[in-house]
């Protein structure tokens, strides 16, 4: 194994040393899974400070779920280290890691009631049965399940209730790290927005370090302290949401977090590809105050409720997507469009696109 130099000074001391301010909650170093060209995870490194929320964003098959399983100990890496609260847990089985996982399909035990699902993690720790049930009850009460609902088997609960039970089950063991695998896959929009709130509501006093995996950029931006974008097993970029959104390192990252105009830099006197987010374009009379501007014809429009997305075209100018507010602008067949200098970001790397 590479990386034999173990830099973790707190190895073996456990969460008691959590008083240190900058302690990494979850740290992954050169993590690789699989061999040869089929490697699902390639040399991934990141560090989530304790109590922070990292979202890994990427299309299906990019290796994000595999990465999560490597952190949880459900898979064994070919190379690299995993550290939780400073302890090197590489090679440890899942039951020793104290990582709470919410699986994509929740994986609630079908033969146990909601209450017993939550108490499971305490029961296997040898805690008195009565205490296990009391703690499970307390947590499920906070999760908004009535006593009758807590006695039901998972199949008799709604999707939102199942998610809360799964979350409570993962949090009741006071995990060192919380791992969420596409926890919204089966939920409607309202429930998605409540998740972060539910985690905050259910977790113990201090915030729990969380790593979430999703393919939905809105989710990622809304709930995260850090966002990582994955592509073909690699972590392309990781950083605070605004940084990754405004200053993507590759065209793929630019597109992964939302709509982006990717323009040949030559049109704006730059080299390489530049990115302008549609909402940063200036539409209407103010366009003349911008560094670049022209009058474009509207080729297509999509009404999105709060805003209308328009596709703009002009001979000799790059095609642009923009968003406009108000009925007048949305209905116009020609629009003045301006690109402010601050809205232009030169993408440093050309690949992956």
């Amino acid at each position, binding site marked *: 194994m590479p990386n034999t130099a173990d830099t973790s000074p707190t190895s073996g001391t456990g969460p008691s040393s959590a008083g240190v301010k900058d302690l990494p909650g979850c740290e992954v170093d050169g993590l690789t899974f699989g061999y040869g060209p089929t490697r699902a995870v390639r040399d991934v490194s990141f560090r989530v400070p304790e109590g922070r929320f990292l979202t890994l964003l990427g299309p299906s098959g990019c290796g994000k779920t595999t990465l999560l399983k490597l952190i949880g100990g459900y898979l064994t890496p070919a190379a690299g280290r995993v550290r939780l609260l400073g302890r090197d847990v590489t090679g440890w089985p*899942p*039951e020793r890691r104290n990582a709470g996982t919410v699986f994509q399909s929740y994986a609630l035990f079908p033969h146990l009631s909601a209450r017993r699902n939550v108490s499971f993690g305490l029961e*296997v720790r040898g805690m008195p049965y009565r205490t296990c049930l009391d703690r499970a009850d307390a947590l499920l009460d906070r999760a908004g399940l009535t006593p009758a609902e807590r006695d039901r088997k998972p199949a008799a609960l709604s999707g939102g209730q199942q998610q809360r039970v799964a979350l409570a089950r993962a949090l009741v*063991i006071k995990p060192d790290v919380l791992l969420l695998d596409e926890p919204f896959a089966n939920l409607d929009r309202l429930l998605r927005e409540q998740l972060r709130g539910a985690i905050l509501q259910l977790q113990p006093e201090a915030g729990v370090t969380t790593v979430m995996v999703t393919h939905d950029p809105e989710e990622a931006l809304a709930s995260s302290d850090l966002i990582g974008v994955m592509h073909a097993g690699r972590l392309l970029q990781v950083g605070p949401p605004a940084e990754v959104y405004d200053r993507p390192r590759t065209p793929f990252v630019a597109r992964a977090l939302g709509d982006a105009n990717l323009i040949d830099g030559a049109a704006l006197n730059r080299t390489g590809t530049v990115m302008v987010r549609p909402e940063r374009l200036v539409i209407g009379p103010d366009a003349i105050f911008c560094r670049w501007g022209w009058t474009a014809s509207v080729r297509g429009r999509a009404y999105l409720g709060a805003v209308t997305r328009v596709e703009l075209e002009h001979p000799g100018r790059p095609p642009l997507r923009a968003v406009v507010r108000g009925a007048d602008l949305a209905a116009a067949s020609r629009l003045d469009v301006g690109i402010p200098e601050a809205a232009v970001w030169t993408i440093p790397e050309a690949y992956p696109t």
Partner: protein
Amino acid sequence: MTRTTPYLLASPAGLLVAGLLLGPLVLLVRVSLYEPADGRGFFTPGTWTLDNFVAVADPAGLRLLGFTAAFGAAVAAASVGVGYPLALFVRSLGPTAKRIAVAAVILPKLASALVVMFGLQQLLSAAGPVSRALVALGVVPEPVTLSRSVFAALLGEVYLVLPYAVLVLLIQLGRIDPAWEAAARGLGAGRWQAFRRVTLPLTVPGLVLAGQLGLMWGVGAFLGPMLLANPADQTLAVDVHRQAFDRQNWPRAAAGAVVLTLSAAGLGAAFAVAARRLGGGR
């Protein structure tokens, strides 16, 4: 689908059951109520008596019944006890290895049961490889005959019923999402705890069905005890055969067969009920 369609779908099987099971069963009950003929034919026509059933329930007959029930229970316990670990092993294999393993489990069914029994007879005889190996290892001082024993009969019957038990258990295990076991491990359960708290309870329906199969198969066991056990240790099925063909006492044989049918059905049902009570219906 009209309302009659389900009945139409069931009719071929229904006809088979009616013609080949219910019809003969009615005849069997009638024959069991004749007086024996004592060598002048198979039974005495036109007579009615319950003496044959009284004979089945005499001390020797009760011993026979007891042995039969115990043998059935042993077959059930052994086929589940051997089949469950085997099914767990097969489940843990990769897709290709799993296909090969399932084929290997079914393979013995291609050989006639008689061939299996004679093979076991040879294997366990005094001159057979097992006996010779035991001598060579110094376990026994001289060659032993293992083939004429209840153990050999049990082995033979388990050999016959095991493939069914393993298939039933594999189907049940196939319904268990590996994510449930992973979730248990992630919550702090070791391999054994995850098995005991998740995998095992979720396999209970399959264990009940496999046990029921083994029990009913073992209660009706004929070939194994007939060919591999001592004449003194026999099941009811072998006795029915003896009464009918050695003693030509058809009414007594029919009475034994009726009791055998009823006890197999009764034991199977009792087992299912008991298992449901114990397992809480899951």
